């Protein structure tokens, strides 16, 4: 027996080793060309050091200040900004405590801002804006939205003109009582970008080289105060206020901004809760100009049919049919806006993701095996509202080479698509662990990684591409840049990792098509199930065949025809004559 002890111990160790080896068994899936689920690895996965919550040490800064759990109960938005020096800054806003948290690129907590200083010198000749400006008084359940002059009167005992007069006092000489702060009420969106600075007359400021001077600003959606607060990125000083619009096309509606982006020249595109006309576009100065990209609702035949025969009372009792609002938006390098929304009506799930051009038209390329719409297979009926229906997108982000990822709040998954509209990979998923994504409210690309804010777990997750996703991303990037041969090499690597990855064959085929190897390209397109490219390749191949064989076949044909005719003529002449001869002879 004794001599077996060694073997037994060895077996024991082996067994324990097998049990305790950290297995990252993230089993994902993808959709095949005909919409069937095929098992494959996830595209992006959360590593153990990529989970940040209030208990992680990343969220305590050098001064001992930290993100407190009671002040981080309702995180609403996350935005990642890449500064000029290459450093990333991550902003998170919390709608309950109304605090703007600032993190660095590695999610180390820097500082938080809970009120934003407003100085009279920034608002000279803008009293009308200040009259519309609102701030919050009280906190928790006592919080209410008050106007700025009420704030001045209640808190400081000042009138608005006295506040404006303070502009003449140098800032350093002002007492603590002469400093004023705006507080947000349900801070639900954050965005940062640069825009060309303008002077009082509205002309762009240029430096001595003639280049426009840019100003670096943070935009905050102050939902319950019905305004957008624009602050300086360096000192968080209020720079501009965008109050609720009072134009005719906004009458009777409440401005409750949730998410926003701006374009290169400083126009703002704002999603406002309860506004069904689309995304609200604001000018540089904060004037509401127009709506864009409305999700028009179309009734089905039966809905129209029944509405036609129902009385006004009956219609009033029915659920109102309204256009679908947008849930999130992101802007890409070409100044196109990616948006997500719920399924339009209850049935149309094909236009949940849109790419809007500046005119407001949807220009998203949908050349993939299926329209980009998240999960293809879902339950249509059933009592549980949470499980029923198509994906419910809550966030979208786009990277430098046109790859965009949408977050599905229903299943907690991230769906990544390329510029052509092909589903590249699916990642994430909801669950009970910290690494699971339960209620994604905002996602942002950080290079190849994705930073996701999870309102359910009150955490931030960093998704890192898995081995295969790294290669896929490279291939897509090369393809985007037009480097087909490099892209093809990467697609071959993808195939060697996962032979079921159908889109890779299309990528290889494209490069072969470019090299005029049509036969091979055809076979690749066939495996990749791309009819359009197969057809293109076959057309060129057919042209090649025709060009090669047409001349000889045609020549031989002509020669044979002429020979036949000649023989026939000769035959006719000869035998007819003989016939005639014999005929004559007979007679």
């Amino acid at each position, binding site marked *: 027996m004794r001599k077996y002890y060694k073997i037994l111990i060895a077996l024991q160790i082996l067994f324990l080793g097998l049990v305790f080896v950290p297995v990252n068994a993230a089993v994902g899936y993808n959709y095949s060309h005909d919409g069937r689920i095929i098992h494959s690895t996830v595209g992006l996965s959360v590593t153990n050091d990529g989970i940040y919550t209030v208990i992680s040490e990343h969220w305590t800064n050098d001064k001992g200040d930290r993100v407190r759990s009671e002040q981080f109960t309702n995180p609403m938005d996350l935005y990642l900004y890449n500064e000029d020096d290459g450093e990333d800054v991550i902003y998170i806003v919390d709608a309950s405590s109304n605090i703007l948290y600032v993190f660095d690129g590695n999610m180390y907590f820097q500082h938080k801002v809970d009120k934003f200083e407003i100085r009279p010198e920034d608002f000279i000749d803008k009293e009308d804006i200040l009259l519309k400006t609102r701030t919050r008084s009280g906190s928790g359940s006592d919080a209410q939205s008050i106007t700025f002059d009420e704030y001045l009167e209640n808190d400081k005992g000042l009138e608005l003109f006295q506040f404006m007069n303070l502009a003449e006092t140098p800032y350093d000489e002002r007492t603590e009582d002469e400093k004023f702060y705006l507080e947000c009420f349900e801070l639900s969106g954050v965005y940062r970008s640069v825009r060309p600075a303008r002077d009082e007359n509205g002309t762009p400021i240029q430096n001595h080289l003639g280049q426009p001077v840019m100003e670096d600003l943070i935009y905050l959606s102050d939902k319950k105060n019905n305004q957008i607060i624009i602050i300086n990125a360096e000192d968080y000083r209020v720079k501009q206020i965008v109050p609720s619009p009072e134009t005719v096309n906004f009458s009777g509606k409440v401005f409750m901004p949730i998410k926003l982006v701006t374009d290169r020249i400083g126009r703002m595109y704002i999603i406002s809760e309860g506004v069904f006309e689309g995304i609200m576009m604001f000018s540089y100065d904060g004037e509401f100009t127009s709506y864009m990209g409305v999700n028009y609702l179309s009734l089905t035949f039966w809905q129209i049919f029944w509405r036609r025969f129902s009385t006004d009372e009956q219609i009033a009792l029915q659920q109102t049919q309204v256009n679908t609002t947008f849930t999130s938006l992101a802007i890409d390098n070409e100044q196109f806006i990616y948006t997500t929304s719920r399924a339009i009506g209850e049935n149309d799930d094909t236009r949940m993701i849109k790419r809007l051009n500046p005119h407001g038209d949807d220009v998203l390329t949908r050349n993939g095996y299926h329209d980009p719409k998240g999960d293809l297979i879902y339950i249509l009926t059933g009592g549980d509202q949470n499980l029923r229906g198509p994906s419910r997108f809550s966030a979208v982000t786009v990277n430098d080479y046109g790859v965009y990822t949408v977050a599905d709040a229903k299943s907690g998954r991230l769906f990544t698509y390329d510029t052509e509209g092909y589903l590249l990979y699916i990642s994430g998923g909801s669950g009970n662990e910290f690494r699971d994504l339960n209620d994604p409210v905002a996602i942002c690309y950080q290079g190849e990684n994705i930073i996701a804010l999870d309102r359910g777990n009150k955490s931030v997750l960093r998704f890192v591409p898995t081995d295969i996703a790294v290669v896929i991303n490279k291939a897509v990037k090369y393809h985007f840049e037009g480097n087909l041969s490099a892209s093809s090499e990467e697609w071959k690597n993808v195939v060697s990792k996962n032979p079921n990855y159908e889109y890779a064959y299309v990528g290889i085929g494209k490069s072969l098509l470019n090299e005029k190897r049509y036969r091979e390209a055809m076979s690749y397109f*066939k495996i990749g199930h791309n009819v359009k490219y197969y057809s*293109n390749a*076959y057309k060129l191949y057919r042209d090649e065949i025709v060009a090669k064989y047409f001349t000889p076949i045609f020549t031989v044909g002509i020669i044979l025809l002429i020979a036949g005719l000649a023989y026939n003529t000769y035959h006719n002449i000869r035998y007819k004559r003989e016939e005639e001869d014999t005929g004559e002879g007979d007679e």
Partner: protein
Amino acid sequence: MNETITINKQKNKFWQKTYNFFRFVYEEGIKFPAYILIHPLKGFDIFKREKKAKISVALAFMFILCIVQILEVQFSGFIVNQRDVNDLNTTLEISYIVVPILLFTVSNWSATSFLDGKGKMNEIFMMLCYSLYPLIFAKVFGIVFSNVIIQSEAGLYGLILGFGAFLTGYLIFFGLISIHEYGLLRCLGSIILTVLAILIVSFTAILAYDLFQKIYGFVYTIYREITIRYL
């Protein structure tokens, strides 16, 4: 000497048989259906009165169409056919051909019995099978054609198949008129009745299927009950 003669005779007999077979195929399988196609009323008249139709030819047409149907899935060009060959279910494909023909035969016969139709059941069946003639050619041509087209020419492929189907429908219509010795309106009426009959038959079939399943389930439960309790 005698042996060679018998061998020669046998050889001759063999060649004679082969010749006769091909002649039969040509006369009955190609020439006569083509004649019907070109002169439907006259053709089906000969078909019925002179009893020129052969059940063997009719069955052969059905069989060939089944084969062509399967070949279509497997060999049509990628442009018009993205079906996975792994999904090919030959039984199902055959049933797509055979079941409608049989169903139509039975239903039409029952419907036309009401409407003084002169056709017998096997005549209706043979008429249907003879009418498949243009469809077979269209499908065979379609298979070849689909392999040499590009996506923008796929419409032509649809046209070919559509034309074949149209001709088949056209033949069935004239066949019904001739076989039952109907006028136009009466023929249309009989077709509507046939469709009704098809619906009734299929409904009954589904009902019976469901019932059998229930009976099977019942018997199976009893069997389980007995085995678990007493065995």
